[in-house]
Structure formats: structure tokens, C-alpha cells
């Protein structure tokens, strides 16, 4: 039992990151109607930039700030492409464009970071936050979860209590109707992309030391992120948060079962499958009747 608990706690860092990436995916989908495959790749670009800045002699925290700035700009750049040329495209086309951009970013990233050669990432928040039933819970684990919860709550408050949030909700429902009312659609869309770029980058910087430290592996964290977003049906921030935490914890639990732990990366796919089957039950019922 204790082994199971220890394994679950080990999955907490990933859980927080998945949750934050999932909530960011919902944020992007709800506000600019794009299933964004580039989310984690944007964050990865910012994270690798941080290493580059450190190699150039910048101290850790200025390098972190510069890396987050790169992630923010990368997010804004992708947002520019999507807003400028694909704002009126269908959801399928937009998703296909971000999938293509993911391939491009990964190819460029592998070229500039030495292929799949592992990199050494600094631990931003070393040490243990507290002990839970004899298990060390790291500061990084706590921080990613706090960041995910904070982003979820802030996103809800921002969208429901501010004027810009109201404009973003209008923009997500009917972009052209919002623009015809003078809402600055392009600017707000860019803002959404930039904000998600910044949060994603910071989350990946925190968890990078615990993951396979290469550009491809970090970019593919988009899979558990989209699985988490799917749990929230790309609508609910809170369910996406719960979905991300659940996927991380299940992944952690698998490490308690020896040979099963080799297949832990399958967990997001199983979650996607389960959610899709669950969401189809109504249709099957209607068909049967």
C-alpha cells in the first residue's frame, strides 16, 4: 500500500504539469477555437532558450525570465499565423495547421539542440516541501499543482469578471460578430496565445529535470495535455485540471507495478479512448432506440 502511495506521489510533478498544460489547451480552444498541438512545443522552445541563455553566462533567474519571454514571443508568433491567415478557417483546418507547426517546431528544435541528445536542465526549485506519510513531496510538485490551480481560478475570474474577459468570450462564440462591434479580435487573440506560451514555458521549466530531457520528448507532452483537456470536453477548466492530475497520478502508480511502468506513456491514450467512448454512449443509446 505504501509503495502505491509513494508511486502516486512520484507522479505529482507530472500531474501538475499535465493539468496546467491541459488548462492552457482549454483556454486556447475556448477563446480562439483552436485545438493547439503546439502548446508544449512552444514551452519547450522557451525552456531550451533558458539553457542557451545560461550557457551564454546569464545567471539562472534572468535566464528563466528570458526563456519565458521567448516562450511568450513564440506563442504570440504562432498566434499571429493563426489570426492573420486562419482566423476564418474551420476547427479541423486550424488543428491541422497547429499539427504541421508542431512538426516544424520539433524539426527546428532538434536541429538547434543537437538532435535527441539529452540536455542538462537546472532544477528551479530544489528540495522537499514536506513529508506525506513518510514520502517526500518536492517543492516542484507542489508548485506545478499550485500553478495549475491558480491558472484555473484566474482564468475563470478573468473571463467572468473583466471587460477583456467578456470580449474574449464574445470573440470565442462569434469572432466576426465581435469584430463588427469593434472588439480588437486580432490583439486579444494574440494575447491569449502569448499568455498560454508564458505559462506553458514556466511549467515545462519546472518539470524538465524530471522528464526525458530532449526537445522531442518535451514537445510531445502535448499528448497528456490534450487528454486532460478532453476530460474537460475542451470547455471546463476545472475538469481539465482534474484530468491532468488524474493522468499524472495514474502514470505514477504504474511505476509500482514493475514491468507495467514501461508502458506508462500509454496512460494518456487510454484516457482519451475512455473519454471518447464515454462521450459516445448517448449517441449509441439514441441509435439503439
Amino acid at each position: 500500500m505504501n509503495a502505491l502511495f509513494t508511486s502516486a506521489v512520484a507522479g505529482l510533478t507530472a500531474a501538475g504539469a499535465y493539468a496546467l498544460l491541459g488548462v492552457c489547451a482549454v483556454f486556447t480552444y475556448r477563446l480562439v477555437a483552436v485545438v493547439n498541438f503546439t502548446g508544449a512545443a512552444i514551452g519547450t522552445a522557451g525552456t531550451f532558450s533558458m539553457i542557451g541563455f545560461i550557457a551564454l553566462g546569464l545567471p539562472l533567474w534572468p535566464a528563466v525570465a528570458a526563456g519565458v519571454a521567448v516562450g511568450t514571443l513564440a506563442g504570440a508568433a504562432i498566434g499571429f499565423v493563426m489570426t492573420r491567415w486562419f482566423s476564418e478557417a474551420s476547427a479541423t483546418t486550424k488543428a491541422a495547421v497547429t499539427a504541421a507547426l508542431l512538426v516544424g517546431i520539433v524539426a527546428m528544435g532538434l536541429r538547434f539542440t543537437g538532435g535527441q541528445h539529452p540536455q542538462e536542465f537546472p532544477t528551479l526549485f530544489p528540495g522537499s516541501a514536506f513529508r506525506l506519510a513518510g514520502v517526500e513531496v518536492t517543492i516542484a510538485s507542489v508548485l506545478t499543482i499550485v500553478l495549475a490551480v491558480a491558472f484555473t481560478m484566474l482564468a475563470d475570474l478573468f473571463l467572468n469578471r473583466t471587460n477583456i474577459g467578456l470580449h474574449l468570450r464574445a470573440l470565442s462564440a462569434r469572432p466576426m460578430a465581435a469584430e463588427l462591434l469593434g472588439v480588437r479580435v486580432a490583439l486579444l487573440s494574440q494575447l491569449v496565445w502569448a499568455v498560454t506560451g508564458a505559462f506553458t514555458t514556466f511549467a515545462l521549466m519546472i518539470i524538465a529535470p524530471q522528464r526525458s530531457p530532449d526537445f522531442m520528448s518535451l514537445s510531445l507532452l502535448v499528448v497528456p495535455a490534450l487528454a486532460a483537456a478532453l476530460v474537460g470536453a475542451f470547455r471546463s477548466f476545472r475538469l481539465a485540471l482534474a484530468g491532468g492530475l488524474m493522468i499524472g497520478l495514474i502514470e505514477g502508480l504504474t511505476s509500482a507495478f514493475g514491468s507495467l511502468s514501461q508502458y506508462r506513456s500509454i496512460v494518456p491514450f487510454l484516457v482519451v479512448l475512455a473519454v471518447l467512448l464515454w462521450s459516445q454512449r448517448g449517441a449509441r443509446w439514441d441509435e439503439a432506440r
Partner: protein
Amino acid sequence: MSLFAIKGLSIRRGRLPIVNEASLAVDRGQISVLLGANGAGKTTFLEGLSGIIPVAEGNIEIGGKAIQAARPGARSRAGLAHVEQGRTVFRDLTTEENLRVGLRDAATLSEAYALFPELLPRRAVRAGLLSGGEQQMLVIARALLTRPKVLMIDEMSAGLAPVVVSRLMQTIRRLADEGLAIVLVEQFAALALAVGNRAYVMRRGRIVYDGDCTTLRQSPEKLHAFYLGGAEG
């Protein structure tokens, strides 16, 4: 010079011409009615004016300022409001939130409720749950809160009860009398001609009649011929 002047506007979809060298004008306090059969190009014409679709040729001026190169948002901020056909409410937002999206400058929500008191008790209701008439009132009120100089309304009466259409037409006339310039695209010619000042008839993308509403109203056979393709203005 008219407050809102369109000269020689052409719109193409690919190589297919949809609107051909169409010109139209409307002044403060006036309603210009644009009539035509289904598929004549009226909605495309309005979409070109508000910037939803690009125009191939021609000038669009509002208060003497050319806006044909501007994005839809900039055209709105220049004083052009477009109420699209199909009652484009933000369905998941409440009535009041819909109005707040349009709110600009010193405009207040009470102006919208004064114009359409029916919306006040429905202010906390999601717009998707309003009746068709209420939704039409909402989109018109929302557009007015942007403080436009020119209001373009596309197929306002579609799918609404006659009593609601009559009420909306009276409101449109009142808004014009208060100084707004209005372009009204309407399938129900008799209703529109009754409130309008100047009439235009569009056929296959061309303006084939440009004259006053009274003349056209008094010659229903002429209007009929325009729709069926047997007359030229």
C-alpha cells in the same frame, strides 16, 4: 457629399462577380432601402461594406473618410455598424453581457433598455434562450451601443411575427428621425418602402433602380418587374 457613400463597388468570389460596380448613398436622418430577389447579392454587398469579405474595386466613405482598406473592427470604430442576418447573438452570454460587448464611449445600458423595454426583464437570461424577436432587438440595441453614424441591417424581419416586424420598423424609422443614417436590406419590400426614403433594387449584383421609396411604392408592377428581371431603372 453623403455621410455614407459607396461608389463603383465590385466583389468577386474567385473569378465569379457577385457585385458589379454598385453605388449607394445615405445621409444622416435617412433610410436607404436595398431590395432584390434572393441571390441578387444584397448580403454580399453589405458584407463587403463592413469588411467581412474583401472588395475588388470601388470606394467606401464614411464622413468623407475612405474605409475600404480597413478591417471590420476599424470600420466599426469609424462609425459603421452592421447587424448581420440570422440574429448573431452571443448565445452563451446573457442579454446584458451581449449589450456590454457593444458598449462604447459614453453609451449606457439604460439607452438599450429604453429603446427596447422588452429586454430589461430578460437581462439575466442567456441570449440563446430569447425569442427570435427579442434576439433581433438585442442585436440592434447592441449595435447602437457602439455609437454608430451608419447602421446597416440585413433581413431584419426574417422569421419574425408580423407584429414584431411592425414594431421593429417603427423603431428603425424613429432612429433615423433622431439622426442616424440607415441602410436596410429587406425581403419584404412593402414594409421597407413604407419606412424608407431612398430605394435601390439590386439584380444579379447590379443596382438596377435608384430612386425614392414613394415612387416605387406607388408602382408595385414596376417593383415586380425588377424582381422578375423585366425592367431596368
